[in-house]
């Protein structure tokens, strides 16, 4: 069966990757017309990026499918070098000093930590080079700055005489403790793919090969101890299979081996916590969470431990022929209630009904409950309120038109969540007064204005206000007519008022939903200027000092925070879209509303209807469509010895000590929480050992239960359970650390601190750097290689990307320091607040992409890029996601005039191309016939801005609704050139995967509107950025900073020890 049923692909059908085929250097296998890559001297780019291929089977023997290669271990030296970046210390005179790669993969039987063989030894001590590194003029070829030469090399050459080494780890899933050290080597002549210095660790290294099969990740492998290593990176494609423990799709732990007690946890320094995305949609090929319907069976509740209230899970151990069971959370022995009674199989101790009782078999289940214990009030179908700004700031920018059209298209597509089961929607528009629409009756809807915005209220009863989708459409039409949204110049009665009563609109929405709960979507084009929640323009312009910025990040008035909390209490959540042309809208105050109510906030500055309408549409459509659970309450339980700590992420407020109100949850809802020890972790509590369930029973159990109302108005409980092993070995925590979760928790915590205004940003940055250094220091100290290597920078395999991720975060809009006296890189307080809110509510994959954007080369597509991935055996090819090209390091060194790159940081997608980019390619993907750059995407979906373009309405339903998206894609890529088609597919895939990501910004090299300067270049986080002062470190410099700190800590500790030893002498 062909993977490419479309004959239009013609002769350019690429061969599907073969198992065992080894990638060849790019130049030998070029598919694209762009041959620039074949000219090595000009191109510093690591060609290796383009020819990663699935490992030969023999290389991955015993490792199952789980190792995307970072380099080809047994291959020739060229391929090794190709896995490394070209950036680094370079010495063109000494290429021969390159050592052969050391053993990269331990044999399966080899015990961890045994191999310490490093890659070669450095020949370049610190401080010997005299030529300073200057990236701007001599990116390559010149000897780079020696490690620490300019900073501290002169002072302490002896202590840091040896170059730092970067550990080049092994495949995830089979981590090794051996630090593999690479000397910092000078580079071969530029562009030579054959020789290179060891790579700086980059996310590229953890990406599976382009077009390869998706990894199948079994949450519990084969009945053995689950979770030996970290799960696949969240930004990679994989198929998670629930084999008894919930998949990383729903829950990720920072470490997958839990330190056994607090002292060990304290030593380990990796934050212990988990990230929940409990309502994530399954990827194609993944099974949905299974339902356990309890409403039919007499209305009883699920089986729970009477002592700790834990829910049934595969770790419940039944004894006494099923008459009793042990709870794996608290160890209590309980009588099995009669309705859950089932005999056990004496052979394996399993219940005989195990095949029918999902809760005893799977890590994730969804109970449908009829038992009144789980109802606070009668569940209702979802109720939505949309608040649209029709003041001058909303009308004249076109925002209101886009907003109501978005809602209309959702309604017309029958895509309102719960729409078929009685969901209703109410619409409030507001300017200086609030407008309500009474949609009852047959005639036209009636508008009611509430001018009293200081004391707002709902003027019409709920029956009149909330309408089913079909009536709501007519209400929207009426709104369009009333305010002449399509053509504001036709507005009767003069220009729209300038007052903006956003706060009052939300208060009214709160009143409307106060008895039923629900979701509110607020769209505003400006700062609220009248009535309740009115804000002063206290900021804007340049931020003079850190203290000033800290004050501005605090809310001006507690109004929005309080309102959000009150709404959360009433089971109402707010999403807010701020799309404005105003220079300052006090987003720091406004965004506290979504933050406190468990919603999300979006900020679009310099909003222009003509280019940004798609963004608003997408945000709104995704936000509405993505709602999954209402009236939700979250509770996390863990084995004896662990308790829950601080909660972070998008939810309302902790209600009692450990319960969290999450008014409304959707596919993107994220919650993070820290776990704390309150004693030794105890597992395998009570009862005799059982054969089959021991894997579960001996491990720690972490269970998240969410009581919620689904879209059909049924009460449900979703339970995700994980069984990480506990450990007493510190190395295990590093070996099982999950980079995504660690970065996410660190970012959330930092963002919360900054957003709350309790710390100036420099302190937060410092804390992030320090924490990073400390983690690495602990690794260095306790899991260290022989002392001979002690001065090298050693990175644990699982966390080798931690420094670059943290660097990216530091350079992001969330934490970037304000440049002094320059415009470049200035972050407005609004953007800062939005970025901080984003960080504290984003999914792990969004955070890592935000930290280290994914940049792909479009001018020379990888062979498989833009086509669906190779299907797994037994999976239909239709569900396979589009393969993205391998990512490219984020360094300006890779920019070249012939190239075209696409960078995605989760918030925007930037398309950059050089001055001499091939005109054929440009013509392929841009529609220049109208003088407008327009990427041909999907059915002529116009995506791209230009200064004067007017965009057509685009057809969104196929595009944005995931249920239809793949089919739509296949329909719409017909009839275009192959390259454009593949690029469309890539862009479409990226856009679809991120709800925040809304548009493609075209930033050609040297663009006059500053798009390149402002949008593109700041994303190149590996560059040294002078404008960014302290955080303007290049990647390498940052590693040096981290290394120095580690060394400082080591030295400090050694000095302390020496001192203590000396002191001790005195007592003898």
């Amino acid at each position: 069966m062909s993977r490419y049923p479309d004959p239009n692909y013609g002769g350019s059908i690429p061969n599907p990757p073969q198992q065992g085929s080894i990638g060849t250097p790019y130049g030998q296998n070029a598919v694209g017309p762009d041959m620039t890559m074949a000219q090595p001297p000009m191109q510093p780019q690591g060609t290796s990026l383009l020819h990663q291929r699935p490992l030969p089977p023999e290389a991955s023997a015993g490792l199952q499918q789980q190792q995307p290669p970072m380099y080809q271990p047994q291959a020739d030296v060229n391929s090794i070098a190709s896995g490394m970046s070209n950036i680094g210390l370079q010495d063109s005179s000494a290429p021969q000093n390159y050592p052969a790669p050391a053993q990269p993969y331990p044999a399966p039987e080899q015990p961890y930590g045994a191999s310490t063989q490093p890659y070669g030894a450095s020949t370049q001590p610190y401080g010997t080079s005299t030529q300073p590194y200057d990236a701007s003029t001599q990116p390559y070829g010149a000897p780079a700055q020696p490690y620490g030469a300019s900073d501290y090399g002169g002072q302490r050459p002896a202590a840091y005489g040896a170059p730092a080494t970067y550990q080049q780890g092994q495949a995830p899933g089979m981590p090794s403790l051996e630090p593999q050290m690479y000397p910092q080597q000078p580079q071969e002549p530029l562009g030579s793919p054959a020789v290179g210095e060891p790579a700086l660790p980059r996310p590229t290294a953890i990406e599976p090969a382009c077009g390869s099969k998706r990894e199948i990740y079994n949450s519990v492998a084969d009945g053995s101890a689950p979770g030996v290593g970290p799960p696949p990176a969240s930004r990679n494609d994989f198929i998670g299979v629930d084999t008894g423990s919930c998949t990383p799709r729903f829950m990720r732990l920072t470490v997958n081996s839990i330190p056994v007690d607090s002292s060990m946890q304290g030593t380990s320094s990796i934050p212990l916590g988990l990230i929940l995305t409990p309502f994530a949609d399954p990827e194609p090929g993944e099974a949905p969470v299974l339902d356990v319907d309890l409403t039919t069976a007499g209305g009883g509740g699920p089986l729970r431990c009477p002592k700790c209230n834990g829910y049934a899970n595969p770790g419940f151990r039944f004894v006494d022929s099923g008459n009793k069971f042990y709870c794996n959370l608290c160890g209590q022995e309980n009588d099995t209630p009669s309705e859950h009674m089932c005999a056990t199989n004496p052979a394996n101790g399993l219940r005989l009904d195990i095949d029918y009782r999902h809760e005893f078999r799977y890590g994730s289940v969804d109970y449908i409950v009829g038992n009144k214990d789980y109802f606070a009030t009668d569940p209702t179908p979802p109720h939505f309120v949309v608040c649209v700004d029709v003041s001058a700031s909303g009308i004249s920018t076109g925002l209101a038109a886009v907003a109501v059209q978005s809602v209309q298209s959702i309604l017309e597509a029958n895509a309102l969540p719960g729409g078929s089961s009685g969901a209703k929607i109410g619409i409030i528009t507001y300017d200086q007064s609030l407008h309500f629409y009474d949609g009852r009756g047959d005639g036209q809807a009636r508008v009611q204005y509430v001018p009293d915005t200081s004391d707002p209220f709902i003027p019409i009863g709920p029956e009149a206000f909330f309408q089913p989708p079909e009536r709501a459409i007519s209400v929207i039409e009426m709104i369009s007519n009333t305010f002449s949204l399509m053509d504001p110049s036709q507005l009767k009665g003069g220009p729209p008022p300038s007052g903006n009563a956003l706060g009052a609109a939300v208060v009214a929405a709160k009143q409307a939903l106060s008895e039923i709960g629900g979701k509110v979507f607020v769209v505003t084009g400006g700062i609220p200027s009248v009535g309740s929640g009115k804000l002063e323009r206290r900021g804007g312009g340049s931020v003079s000092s850190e203290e000033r910025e800290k004050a501005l990040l605090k809310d001006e008035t507690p109004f929005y925070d309080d309102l959000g909390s009150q709404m959360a209490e009433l089971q109402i959540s707010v999403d807010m879209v701020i799309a404005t042309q105003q220079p300052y809208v006090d987003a720091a105050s406004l965004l506290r509303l979504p933050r406190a109510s468990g919603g999300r906030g979006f900020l679009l500055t310099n909003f222009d209807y003509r280019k940004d309408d798609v963004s608003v549409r997408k945000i709104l459509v995704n936000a509405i469509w993505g709602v999954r659970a209402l009236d939700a309450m979250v509770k996390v339980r863990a084995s004896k010895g662990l308790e829950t700590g601080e909660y972070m992420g998008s939810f309302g407020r902790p209600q009692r000590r450990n319960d969290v109100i999450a008014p409304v949850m959707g596919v993107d809802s994220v919650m993070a929480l820290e776990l704390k020890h309150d004693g030794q972790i105890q597992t395998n509590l009570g009862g005799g050992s059982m054969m089959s369930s021991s894997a579960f029973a001996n491990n720690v159990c972490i269970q998240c239960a969410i009581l919620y109302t689904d879209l059909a108005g049924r009460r449900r409980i979703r339970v995700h359970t994980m069984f990480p092993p506990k450990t007493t070995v510190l190395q295990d925590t590093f070996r099982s650390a999950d980079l995504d979760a660690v970065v996410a928790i660190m970012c959330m915590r930092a963002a919360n601190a900054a957003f709350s205004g309790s710390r100036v940003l420099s302190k937060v940055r410092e804390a992030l750097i320090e924490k990073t250094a400390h983690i690495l220091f602990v690794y260095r100290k306790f899991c260290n290689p022989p002392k001979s290597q002690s001065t090298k920078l050693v990175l644990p395999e699982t966390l080798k990307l931690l420094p670059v991720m943290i660097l990216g975060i530091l350079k992001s809009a969330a934490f970037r320091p304000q440049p002094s006296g320059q415009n470049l890189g200035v972050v407005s307080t609004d953007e800062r607040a939005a970025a901080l809110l984003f960080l504290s509510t984003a999914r792990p994959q969004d955070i890592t992409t935000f930290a280290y954007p994914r940049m792909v080369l479009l001018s020379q597509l990888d062979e498989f890029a833009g086509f669906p991935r190779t299907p797994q055996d037994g999976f239909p090819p239709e569900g396979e996601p589009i393969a993205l090209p391998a990512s490219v390091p984020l360094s300006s060194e890779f920019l070249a005039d012939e190239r075209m790159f696409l960078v995605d940081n989760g918030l925007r997608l930037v398309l950059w191309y050089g001055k001499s980019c091939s005109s054929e390619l440009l013509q392929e993907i841009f529609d220049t016939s109208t003088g407008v750059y327009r990427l041909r995407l999907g059915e002529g979906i116009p995506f791209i801005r230009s200064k004067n373009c007017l965009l057509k309405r685009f057809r969104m339903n196929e595009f944005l609704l995931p249920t239809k998206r793949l089919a739509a894609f296949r329909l719409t890529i017909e009839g275009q050139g192959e390259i454009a088609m593949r690029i469309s597919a890539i862009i479409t895939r990226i856009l679809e995967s991120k709800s925040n990501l809304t548009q493609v910004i075209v930033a050609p090299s040297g663009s006059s509107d500053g798009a390149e300067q402002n949008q593109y270049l700041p994303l190149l986080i590996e560059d040294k950025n002078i404008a960014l002062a302290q955080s303007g470190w290049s990647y390498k410099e940052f590693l040096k900073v981290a290394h120095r700190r580690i060394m400082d800590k080591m030295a400090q500790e050694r000095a302390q020890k020496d001192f203590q030893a000396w002191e001790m002498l005195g007592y003898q």
Partner: protein
Amino acid sequence: MNFSELEERDGLRWSALIWPWSRLEATRSVIPFAAMYTPLKNLQNMPPLLRYEPVNCKTCTTLLNPYCRIDPNQKIWMCPFCSGRNPIPPQYSEIAQNNLPAEQIFTTVEYMLPRPMAPPPAFVFVLDTCVSDAELRVAKESLMKAISLVPPETIVALVSFGKNVNVHVLGFTDSVKSYVLRGDKDYTSQNIKDLLNLGIIGSQAVQGGQSVAVQGATRFLQPISECEFMFTSVLEDLDKDPWPVKQNQRPKRCNYTALSVAVALLESSYQGYGARVVALLGGPPTQDPGKVVKLELGDTLRSHADIERDYAPFYRKAVKAFDTIATRAVNAGHTIDVFSCSLDQVGLYEMRSCVDRTGGYFVTSEAFSHPMFKKSFEMFFKSNAEGKLNMGFQGSMEIHCSREIKIAGVIGPVASMNKSGNNVSQEVEYGIGGTNTWRLCSLDPSTTLSAYFEVVNQHSSAFREGQYRYVQFVTKYQHADGTYRCRVSTNAGLWTEGSNINQVRSSIDQEAAAVLVARLSVWKTENEEAFDILRWLDRKLIHMCSRFATFGETKEAFSLPVNLSLYPQFMFNLRRSQFLQVFNYSPDETAYYRSYLNRENTENALLMIQPTLISYNMSSPPAPALLDVSSIKPDSILLLDTFFYVIVFCGERIAQWRKAGYHEDPQYAALKALLEAPKDDAASIIEERFPYSRYIEADEKGSQARFLLAKLNPSISYNNEEQVGQQSLIYTDDASLQVFMDALKEQAQQSVQNS
């Protein structure tokens, strides 16, 4: 003297035409020195409109009148009020004894002042939507009917309310749009203006490059000719208040805020021009401010007893709240009319100042579908022969009087304009005093004020025979056609020596006096704390009798002159009337009845005090019958007109005949005629009356008969039942007129003997 002749000439009825000269004697006359004045009375003999400005006295501002002495030679005229000398203005240069202007001939004239026309009158309809769908439909139909009746240039606005107040946009819009204000919030007037953006909101360019200020209020206030379609579609779309009403609860209603908003709407844009707020209420306000009862149906509306004993927790607050609205309306010169259509009370008692002080009307009925409401509402908007509304606006009445008397106050649908002058009494105050000018926010031909005066001459001051006292009423108002008018009535009366009782006695108008006393007693009972009004009335009556009656040796010798003979009976009926007796009447009813007593003319007011009873029978033509239970005869039909309702009451036998269907038999055409005659008469009474009278048909011993019996003198009650056998009787403990008269004679005699 013919009192009605005077009334026909000037619209005036004095309690007595000739008055004792001194203060002491005047006080001893007991009857108040006062007049009933109907400023807009249609006077047959009034000269045509005088289309020029009146001439006034420089000293006392009194207008030129027939009592002024003209000296054509010196070109001066003498003001009879202040004896001031004024030059005759040039336009009167032709004046001579045989060539006098109308104002020099007629005691009542009306000027049409040469001023720019006022804009057409405005009506703000305030509609309660907390009623049943059927009721609301009828109310809406009535509104539609109303706007079809009034002249098309009339300005209208629509405010509907329930839990909240909706102000409907009638101009500049395609869609059905309204502004909503919270029902339970006490907005200040300025608040409302700001919230509804009633100021000038911008300018609209018109041809020629000029820009015209667009009043924010014009969105709500539009001429019918412009907004009829919009008004109709708004009304069509208007549904019952959408807020759910819990079982056992009243709907949430915000009568106060609705009125307040309506008044604010007019205040901002129609200050100083004629406008009325027409409120259609379906129930009591249950929301603060202005709340009169709790939401729970279990909480019943306050009764008089509750108010007296201070068991009405919301009463004072509500009165205070509505008083503020009244004050605002008066200041802007606007009127509030209340049509209440509810079985239960709606809180009229609390809002009476809004209506009474602004010259508005109360109309009550059980439902919007009841003819009482429908007909009254239609009549209210009826235009006169000229196609104009039958009402005047923005009126003010000033009283000038000669030096011997001072103004004690006015009772009627007016408000004080607080204009003091040296003709204002400092010592006594009857009704609204302390001013010589009153505001009549609206007035119509039936609006009748009672003006009370005080004689200030000392007993010792010299009296000259044939001396006159002068009183001039100057009423300025805005006519419904937009012109400004000024009606002037000047009256002169003789003084008499104090001892000359006969002269006074013969000049007493007992009907006017009874009404004047009735109004005064109502005023006192409403405004004076812990006032025993019946005792006061009795004392006054006894004093009056002892002053004016003639006494003999026996009781039977007691007699009153003809022109006073009915006065005790009026007082007897007044004592028993709903105006003073609150037992069995709800506060709302009391407010309603008193409101009409205080605004109708002498004849109607007297009708309210003492209804007329006409007896129809086969043997004789219809004749007035005694207002006595003994008038009930089995073979006669009675027609009782109490102003508020009209009862046709069939005697027992006639009722039996009718039930047997004899009247349908051509042989008994006479019976048929007899049955129809009172009905026709009733119909013609009702036709003319505003508010539409309740029409009741009753049979003797039928359930409806109680309406009649309540008004009859209980000469036969169960106390003396044995004596009368089969005769109808009234179950009451009230004293009969006979008992009352006997006691009166006794007391009067005693009083004379004691003095």
